[in-house]
């Protein structure tokens, strides 16, 4: 049963990313050229609504479907990993025109070369695992 729910959430997320064009290379390019409010509106409105919900959840006014408290795990402290990792990610996001969510969406939409990007992103993750101890965090 739960598997069906997760599948449904994924289908919703995939449809939204496709239909909002957040999975389009052109939209990502346009965003980094500050050519339209579109992508900023998507991320901004999601964050505003999300933060209102999380504030309520943290005060214990909302519990999860199973009745548990909704816990937000704080990210580890650090600076370099977030800035340097973020810059590396941003370079790739702009070049491929897709972040991890849209990678899956574009595969479903039938853009076959995205498979190359997906495989390379798995290799990139593996590479990080190999080099992790040598990197500043």
């Amino acid at each position: 049963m739960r598997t069906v729910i997760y599948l449904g959430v994924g289908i919703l997320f995939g449809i939204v990313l496709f239909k909002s064009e957040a999975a389009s290379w052109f939209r990502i390019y346009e965003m980094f050229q500050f050519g339209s409010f579109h992508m900023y509106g998507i991320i901004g409105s999601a964050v505003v609504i999300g933060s209102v919900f999380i504030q309520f959840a943290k005060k214990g006014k909302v519990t999860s479907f199973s009745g548990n408290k909704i816990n937000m795990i704080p990210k580890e402290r650090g600076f370099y990993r977030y800035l340097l990792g973020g810059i590396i990610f941003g370079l790739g996001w702009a070049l491929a025109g897709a972040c991890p969510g849209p990678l899956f969406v574009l595969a479903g939409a039938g853009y076959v070369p995205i498979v190359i990007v997906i495989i390379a992103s798995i290799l990139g993750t593996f590479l990080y695992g190999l080099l992790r101890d040598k990197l500043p965090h």
Partner: protein
Amino acid sequence: MNWIQQPWPWYVAGPLIALVMILLLMLDKKMGMSSNLRTLCAICGAGKTTSFFRFNWKAQRWNLVVALGMVLGGFIGENLLSEDPTVHIASNAITEDLKEMGFSDVDNAYAPDKLYADNVFNDPIILLILIIGGLLVGFGARYAGGCTSGHAISGLSDLQLPSLIAVIGFFIGGLLMVHLIFPLIF
């Protein structure tokens, strides 16, 4: 119902993305798509090489199911919910820039043929660009501990400073790529 077939505006898409994040929290889970890349490494046996991939990946199966759903969502979006998936860029200046860079199908496609048409498999330069793009996305997301969904949506919603630093990094990287590196490669 005609609006469903048109591109969805930000004020529809943003709240729906928030809904996805909220649904996952209500299911006692956390939104984060790049975690799936780490899980896939673990499934492929990367744990034999590095402890970073030695974790109970079976506990992450739910997220792989979400990713599978996203593949289906992409299929449905393209084939059932779009009369015409063409992306229209608002600014003429950007459209002209893209044409000059060789993206001749701007305003005429969802993803550029230059990078995502089937014939790119015969073009080693484009293949290299796609591989480098993927390596950077995968490496950077794991180094930063999350991608757009984990940091820009989920982390910023929780007002986490590390996520703000990561998102600033995403933009530094994206701006460098588009403004400094694109003129050299396209």
